[in-house]
C-alpha cells in the first residue's frame, strides 16, 4: 500500500483519526511543527498527513442528518478517556526529548508498564486529548516476531 498526499482512496479505504478541536491553527501547529506532520488542507476540515495515516481536525457541532443523535465537542472531562491516538515509537527517550523540546506537554516521563510489554508516556494536545507514546520491550518484539 502506498499512501497519496490526501486521504482520497482510489480503491479500498484509508483509516484516519478525527479530532474535534477548538482552534484549528493551534492544533495544526502541534501536529505539524511538533510531531512533523505534513499539512494537506488547512481548515474545515484540516487534513494532516502523519506517517502512515492522517489527522483530520474540525470544530464541533451537530447533530447532522447522517448522525442525528450525535454531538461533536472537545473533551469535556480530561480525566475520562475512551479512545486516543497511539504512537508506537522505536526510541521513546529520543521522541520524549525531541517533542518536549519543541513544546509538547508530557504528563510524565517514559515509564515501564507493569505488563512488561512496553515503556510509555502521554502527551496532552492543545485540546487536552491524551496521545500515547509507547515503545515495545524486547519481550513484546519477540512475541510479535514469533506470532507473525
Amino acid at each position, binding site marked *: 500500500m502506498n499512501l497519496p498526499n490526501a486521504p482520497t482512496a482510489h480503491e479500498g479505504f*484509508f483509516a484516519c483519526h478525527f479530532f474535534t478541536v477548538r482552534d484549528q491553527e493551534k492544533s495544526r501547529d502541534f501536529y505539524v511543527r511538533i510531531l512533523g506532520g505534513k499539512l494537506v488542507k488547512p481548515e474545515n476540515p484540516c487534513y494532516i498527513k502523519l506517517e502512515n495515516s492522517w489527522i483530520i481536525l474540525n470544530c464541533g457541532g451537530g447533530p447532522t*442528518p447522517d448522525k442525528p443523535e450525535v454531538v461533536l465537542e472537545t473533551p469535556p472531562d480530561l480525566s475520562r478517556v475512551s479512545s486516543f491516538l497511539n504512537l508506537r515509537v522505536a526510541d521513546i527517550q529520543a521522541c520524549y526529548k525531541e517533542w518536549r523540546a519543541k513544546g509538547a506537554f508530557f504528563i510524565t516521563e517514559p515509564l515501564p508498564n507493569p505488563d512488561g510489554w512496553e515503556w510509555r508516556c502521554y502527551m496532552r494536545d492543545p485540546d487536552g486529548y491524551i496521545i500515547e507514546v509507547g515503545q515495545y520491550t524486547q519481550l513484546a518484539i519477540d512475541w510479535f516476531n514469533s506470532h507473525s
Partner: protein
Amino acid sequence: MSVQVEQKSYEMPPRDGFTFTHFITVADIDRSADFYEKVFGGRILSRGDSKGASGHIQIANTWLIVNVGGGPTPDKPSVTLSVPADPDQVSSFLNIRVADIQACYKLWKSRGAEFITEPKEKYGEIRCYIRDPDGYIIEVGQSTDLT
C-alpha cells in the same frame, strides 16, 4: 506485516521513527477484534493477555489497539480509561475514507455492521456512520472535493 509509504516501511513493532495507531477502550477484546476483522477485513496480530497486554488489529494503513478500561496508571495518574459513557457525545473517532461508499455500505452492512443512516451527501462528501460493538462511531466518507 508492514505498510509502505513512499520509501518508508511502517511496521508493528516499529523499527525506526514511529507508527500511527488508534486506541479504543473496549468491554471485550475478542468481540472487538472479531468485529474489526470481519467487517473491515482486519488482520488480528494479538488478542492481548490476562496480564494486561492489548489486542492489535491491522486495518488498511494503520493498526487498531484495543484493551479493557482501568487506571489511573503511574504514567497517567489523573486519567481513567472506560468505554464511551455517552455514545452520543463524541470528541474523536476513527475516520475511514473510502473509494466507493455505496459498495462499502453494502458490503460492511452484509457483514453485520450497524449503520446509523445510509450514505448522505454533505459538505462536498458522502458520509455515513457505523456504531462499533462499544458504541464508538466510525465515519465512513467518500470525498468529492479533494484530488
